């Protein structure tokens, strides 16, 4: 090994410690520690009892940081909090350093654990809980509560340092802790995360504006709620915020997280000044608890509404995929039928053309035979060209526009397509014909609906069996009936029933429907009911 290569190896081994990403991460952590300490200091305005604050924005920053950076960063974030607070003198270790350290890093560790658990386990309990943004809302509500409960092991010994334990005071302090953290997380964390998303240029969906009608509705509901609060206050009954709780929940359900958050902010702007130092302790605590409840309920409602909308959109997307898959299946069946239709005349042409070569190169060519063979080839080629023209019309863009469609002609085409499949399964297709009639509609879709019904009937028929197709006019409606024998064992062969669902949706889009009848216990009949096209081609 040369000196140069050993130097490079040393460089490589040191690189992970001093690489840019690590330095950047360290700076971020330091900045986080400073911001946390600053907010911690600012929260002293709302301090109550021996504990923190009734409004603790630092918890919101911590939650947003851990949510954004991942639960893995929890120990590092706790370390940064501890370091900056000790260096700036915001916190001191006192005469029980272990307990003091635990008191500073404990909440951060609990937050990280809750975020990790909600993210990894939420979706397993219930599908909707796993859908964004519900995990965030759940973690934001559960985190502060859990941090408060987990504080007992170090809060009790800390309280006992000053002599006998004062249960009431301890409970009060823990309550303040939970309320302050809850408010801090729900008010500060969402906008911080939206800001981070915006700066990262990512999902704009966080800023998806609600429909103006929804905004107006939320505004009216909020205004009414605050009017009621004001009226109660004017009547000398004090500040009672229950109407605002209802309004925020309503707004969340209707306008999602942004609506809920705005409602929460409005409430906080009104309520927080009332809970600053100077107000009566009990009033401050009550108001803060109501504010925390409003924030939790509103944010959960908003998140639930968004998760539900997302779930609905996902369902829609899957339905569309299913629809496309079904359409491909129909196309496949059609192409198989077309292959069958083409290979018959093509076989004849090939054989006869070879025969022609042999006949014309004979020493004494039979001209009558040659002429006959040539005529046969020409006739078969003509059949093929006609089929190609028919198929070309099928793929034509104009086929997508609604047009006037002759039902006998349409059924004829469907018969050609389905016939080979029916034959292969030993099912006889019988078209009984009917009056000349037209409907106005989308050519390919109507074909697909008819073909789906017909293929279902063929699949459900016993072998050998018979499927009868007929059509009739009743008033201004056209009725196409597809009737088949039914045997139980063949019913199990049928697919997922998607074909029928799609046929139904196509019928509905054409102002029609599909009726189901059982002329006898062994026979099934599906009737496609469509409005007839008017006299003029509109």
């Amino acid at each position, binding site marked *: 090994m040369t000196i140069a290569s050993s130097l490079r190896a040393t460089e490589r081994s040191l690189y992970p410690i001093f690489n840019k990403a690590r330095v950047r991460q360290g700076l971020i952590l330091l900045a986080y520690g400073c911001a946390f300490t600053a907010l911690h200091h600012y929260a002293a305005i709302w301090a109550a009892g021996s504990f923190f604050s009734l409004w603790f924005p630092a918890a919101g920053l911590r939650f947003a940081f851990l949510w954004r950076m991942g639960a893995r960063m929890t120990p590092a974030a706790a370390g940064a909090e501890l370091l900056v607070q000790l260096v700036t003198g915001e916190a001191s270790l006192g005469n029980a350093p272990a307990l003091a350290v635990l008191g500073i890093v404990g909440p951060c560790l609990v937050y990280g654990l809750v975020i990790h658990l909600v993210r990894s386990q939420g979706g397993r309990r219930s599908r909707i809980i796993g859908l964004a943004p519900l995990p965030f809302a759940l973690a934001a509500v559960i985190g502060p509560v859990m941090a408060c409960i987990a504080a007992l092991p170090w809060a009790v010994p800390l309280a006992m340092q000053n002599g006998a334990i004062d249960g009431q005071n301890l409970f009060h302090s823990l309550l303040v802790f939970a309320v302050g953290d809850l408010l801090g997380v729900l008010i500060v964390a969402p906008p911080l995360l939206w800001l981070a998303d915006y700066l990262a240029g990512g999902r704009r969906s966080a800023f998806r504006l609600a429909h103006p009608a929804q905004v107006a509705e939320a505004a009216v509901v909020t205004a009414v709620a605050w009017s009621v609060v004001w009226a109660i206050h004017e009547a000398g009954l004090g500040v009672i915020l229950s109407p605002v709780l209802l309004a925020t929940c309503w707004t969340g359900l209707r306008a999602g997280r942004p609506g809920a958050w705005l409602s929460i902010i409005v409430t906080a702007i009104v309520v927080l000044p009332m809970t600053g130092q100077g107000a009566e302790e009990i009033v401050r605590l009550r108001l803060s608890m109501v504010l925390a409840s409003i924030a939790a309920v509103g944010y959960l409602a908003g998140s639930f509404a968004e998760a539900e909308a997302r779930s609905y959109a996902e369902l829609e997307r899957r339905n569309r995929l299913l629809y496309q898959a079904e359409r491909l299946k129909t196309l496949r069946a059609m192409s198989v039928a077309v*292959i069958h239709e083409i*290979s*018959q005349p093509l*076989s004849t042409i090939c*054989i006869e053309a070879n025969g022609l070569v042999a006949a014309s190169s004979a020493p004494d060519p039979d001209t009558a035979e040659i002429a006959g063979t040539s005529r*046969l080839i020409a006739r078969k080629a003509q059949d093929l060209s006609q089929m190609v023209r028919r198929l070309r019309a099928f793929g034509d863009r104009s086929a997508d526009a609604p047009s006037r469609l002759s039902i006998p002609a349409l059924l004829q085409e469907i018969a050609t397509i389905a016939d*080979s499949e029916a*034959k*292969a399964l*030993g099912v006889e297709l019988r078209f009984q014909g009917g009056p000349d009639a037209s409907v106005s509609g989308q050519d390919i879709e109507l074909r697909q609906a008819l073909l789906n019904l017909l293929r279902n009937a063929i699949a459900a028929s016993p072998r050998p069996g018979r499927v009868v197709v007929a059509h009739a006019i009743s008033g201004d409606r056209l009725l196409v009936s597809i009737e088949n024998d039914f045997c139980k064992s063949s019913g199990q062969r049928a697919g997922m029933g998607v074909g029928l669902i799609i046929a139904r949706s196509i019928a509905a889009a054409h102002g029609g429907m599909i009726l189901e009848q059982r002329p006898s216990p062994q026979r099934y009949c599906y009737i496609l009911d469509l409005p007839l096209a008017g006299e003029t081609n509109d």
Partner: protein
Amino acid sequence: MTDGSRAIVYVVDDDCDLGASLARLLNRSGFAAEPFVDPAQLLAAYTAAPAACILTDVMMGDLDGFAFADRLREIDPATSIIFMTAWPTVSSAVDAVRRYGGLDYLEKPVDEQRLLTAVAEGVAWSRRRRARLERTARLTPREQDVFALLVRGLSSKAIAAELSLSPKTVEDHRAQIAAKTGTSGLAQLIELAGGGAPN
């Protein structure tokens, strides 16, 4: 229409143009071919002129190619059958050969060379099969039993035990079988019995 030296081949297809074309092709290639649109018609007329080979479509109207093959086998176990279809699937191909005793399974558009080879093979197989059937047709029912066990490789003693006969009687039957079929030795007997499958 069909002279003695040319093997009879019937073509069954519900597309009358294609059936006629295939028959013309086979006629040009030295067979005595005749097209049929309806398999039932052919079944009705079959015994008058049994064929060496039948070329049939699988997907036809009332009677499909497989059901037709079953009915045909009942009338004539010595004719070879070749299936053709415009919609080939693996399962139908396996069925065609294993269940319905098809010699080949051809896709449409038909490859002429493969068709002619298959028909020639079918004619040859049918000739051998007919000859064997003729030679074993003269055996008595008991001799047929002994013959069936012999070609399975059983000794005279084992056959005697199986059929509850004396070994001497079995030996007599063996001599009769050899005389009637014109075979000498077990190898020829087994070869004679080997006409059950098309190959």
